């Protein structure tokens, strides 16, 4: 959307359940020129970190949200003027006071212009029945509209201290915004260090709550797949509709209030949490509060897999595919899931959801402990060993280079986490909600192992052994069921059938 000749850059919607994002870095500054679709800034949301491309070619005329600030989806972040357009010198000239933090640019700065005077002058030409005006007059100055209440709460100001120009002296949104601009605010809005406690407290909003519900029917509608022309798009396919029950209830953001009380001791450092860290934090807590976690483990002799990998690796390397043990395990795990639908299922209210497909999540740790992301391989049951290896390689690579799309991290039905690369031999991962189970893979170690020789006698051999764990939600999956799943998975891996995969 553009106003006049300027194009506005807004915080993009990175997935239906994402309501806000944090600006991590501006890649261009005011005055820089930029081409259409060239990266303009980097943002971080609780789902993905990504670059935002410029919606138009031109010159950056304003940067309205500074690095480190978190704003809602749809908020205008910057404006771009077309190349060659006459650009008014960037905003700063505006506030007379030179010193105070210019951090927060006027949100929409209707410059201290003669407030539409005519409004007051023209007392709405005797409207026959002005219900609106009547209501306002009745409430007078004490009535605070929802948006004014929200802005006041976000900035910690008392709305009654703002001069009102609305009906009956009511404080309008414009009033409070210009009040904020005038610097009369209680707390400095975005001074990086001191304020954040107050500032980062998520606005008491019904977060993105509405979106998921709304979004259910829309995608159907949006795709009138020209070829096969399937669903009557207009209508939420009845079977799909009941979803709302599960719509991941936003975890009643328990304001991270507990911490700030404690004073820093000498030597301690305090740093703000990234959006991803906060997402992980909330998600892990919610999962533990939701599911009844139980972990079962099984030891698997991977001798056959090791030999096969040795054999296939060069061949696949020629196709630029890195054949990992994880690919073998993922392939076998997915195949086994089809026999154990509850492990691949989900509790939804009082019902159990099962499905004939596996959307396989692979937990990927980002460098330097920056966080964890679980991109999803859709319809993993359709991939053979090579396809699985290629898919894992692709999503892991894109996760680390921030090239994931919102859809890449949604819709998983089962997750594999692989902390074994550092030598750990056992763990109890947390389930990725709303899934029912997560498979952990651990270090492959050579162990003395009892096997039978060709005469049927027990002998001790050196075998490559891996410990696999299945952490499952005991509300849905019982121990015996999980045990059977692990047994079948082990059997598949130990007797790997090259032809079948």
């Amino acid at each position: 959307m553009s106003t006049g000749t300027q194009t506005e850059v807004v915080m993009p919607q990175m997935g239906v359940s994402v309501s806000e994002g944090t600006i991590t870095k501006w890649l261009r500054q005011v005055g820089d020129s930029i081409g259409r679709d060239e990266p303009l800034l980097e943002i971080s949301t609780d789902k993905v970190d990504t670059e935002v491309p410029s919606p138009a070619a031109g010159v950056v005329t304003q940067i309205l949200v500074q690095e480190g600030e978190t704003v809602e989806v749809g908020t205008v972040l910057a404006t771009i003027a077309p190349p060659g357009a006459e650009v008014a010198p960037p905003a700063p000239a505006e506030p007379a006071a030179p010193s105070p933090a210019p951090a927060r640019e006027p949100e929409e700065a209707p410059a201290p212009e003669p407030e539409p005077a005519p409004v007051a002058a023209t007392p709405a030409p005797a409207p026959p029945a002005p219900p609106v005006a009547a209501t306002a007059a009745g409430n007078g100055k004490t009535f605070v509209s929802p948006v004014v209440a929200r802005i006041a709460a976000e900035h910690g100001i008392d709305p009654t201290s703002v001069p009102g120009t609305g009906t009956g002296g009511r404080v309008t949104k414009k009033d409070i915004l210009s009040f904020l601009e005038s610097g009369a605010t209680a707390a400095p809005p975005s001074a990086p260090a001191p304020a954040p406690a107050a500032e980062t407290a998520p606005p008491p909003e019904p977060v993105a709550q509405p979106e998921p519900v709304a979004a259910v029917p829309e995608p159907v509608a949006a795709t009138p797949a020209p070829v096969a022309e399937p669903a009557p798009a207009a209508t939420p396919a009845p079977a799909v509709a009941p979803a709302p029950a599960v719509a991941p209830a936003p975890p009643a953001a328990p304001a991270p209030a507990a911490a700030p009380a404690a004073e820093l001791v000498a030597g301690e450092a305090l740093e703000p949490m990234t959006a991803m860290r906060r997402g992980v934090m909330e998600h892990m807590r919610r999962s533990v509060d939701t599911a009844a976690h139980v972990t079962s483990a099984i030891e698997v002799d991977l001798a056959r897999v090791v030999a096969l990998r040795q054999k296939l690796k060069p061949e696949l390397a020629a196709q630029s595919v890195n054949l990992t043990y994880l690919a073998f395990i993922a392939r076998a795990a997915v195949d086994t899931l089809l026999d154990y639908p509850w492990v691949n299922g989900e509790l939804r209210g009082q019902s159990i959801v099962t499905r004939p497909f596996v959307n396989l999540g692979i937990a990927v740790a980002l460098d330097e402990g920056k966080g964890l992301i679980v991109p999803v391989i859709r319809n993993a049951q359709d991939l053979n060993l090579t396809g699985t290896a290629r898919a894992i390689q692709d999503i892991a690579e894109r996760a680390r280079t921030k090239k994931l799309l919102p859809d890449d991290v949604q819709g998983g039905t089962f997750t594999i986490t692989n902390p074994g690369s550092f030598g750990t031999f056992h763990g109890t991962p947390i389930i990725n909600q709303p899934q029912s189970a997560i498979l952990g893979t651990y270090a492959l170690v050579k162990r003395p192992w009892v096997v039978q020789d060709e005469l049927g006698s027990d002998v001790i051999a050196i075998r490559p052994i891996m410990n696999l764990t299945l952490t499952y939600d005991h509300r849905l999956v019982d121990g015996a069921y999980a045990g059977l799943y692990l047994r079948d998975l082990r059997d598949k891996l130990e007797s790997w059938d090259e032809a079948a995969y």
Partner: protein
Amino acid sequence: MAEMTYIQAISDALRLEMRRDQRVFILGEDVGVYGGAFKVSLGFQEEFGPWRVIDTPLSETAIVGGATGAALMGLRPVAEMQFADFISCAWDHLVTVAAKQFFRSRTPIPIVVRLPSGGGFSGGPFHSQNPESSFAHIPGLKVVCPATPHDAKGLLASAIEDPNPVLYFEHKHLYRRIKGDVPEERYTVPFGSANVHREGDDATVVTWGAMVHTATEAAEELAKEGVEVEVLDMRTLIPWDKARVLEGVRRCSKVLVLHEDTRTGGFGAEIAATIAEEAFEDLDAPVMRLAAPDTPVPFSPPLEKAYIPQVEDVVTALRELAAY
């Protein structure tokens, strides 16, 4: 680009679709020899022959029933109601059969019903209605309400291409009054995507059909008073562009929902309720509605003028909203 009236754009779209897709045919009362009551299909029978431009008996039931059957067999019928008002005769075929067929047996019903609707020329109670909200309430139907020649052409192509029953409400008062640039080649306008007909940040008017033009004229009046009003043309009601409406609410915080249909149970109520549910904390004033009163459309020109929201009415409402 060519300048076309709204009605020429509709004819143009129909002609292009019939030329490119042999499955497309039209049927209705007097659409053939006579060229349609409003001359939308003038010359069509000469070009496409009587088997693709079918004059039907005076029976809306037969027209929609026949179209549904033809669609079931793989054709792409475009049925014309002489006036949108008469579609009530075909309610059963449309609502009970066409809208539900896919859900019952997974067979799509790709029909389009063209519905000349709206008042403003003393057509009286049987020739002036805007019954879109009755059908917006029926799961399985899509509802389209173009306001400009460009959208009239692009949305009709989308409607014909769509695998679902689509009700295409074409506003009679726009037919020859509204002109605009229209690409000569075929193109489509997607469903569910609102169009910003006029930009503004102080209040947003959510509307469709002929009211888009009424709202725009009113917005120009308000601009003289320093109030910039956004006019959002919904273009399609099912599906409707909720995201764009909510975006407007977030930015402007003041909303007027405007329609020519009667007030109670109008589609504006759905929009207003959704805003209250999903953007409550962005509101700086109650969501206002402006619509026709809950009576049939009167014949008498002064009464009809009092009945259909006029530019002055919208100006008054917007002034109140701006001052709130």
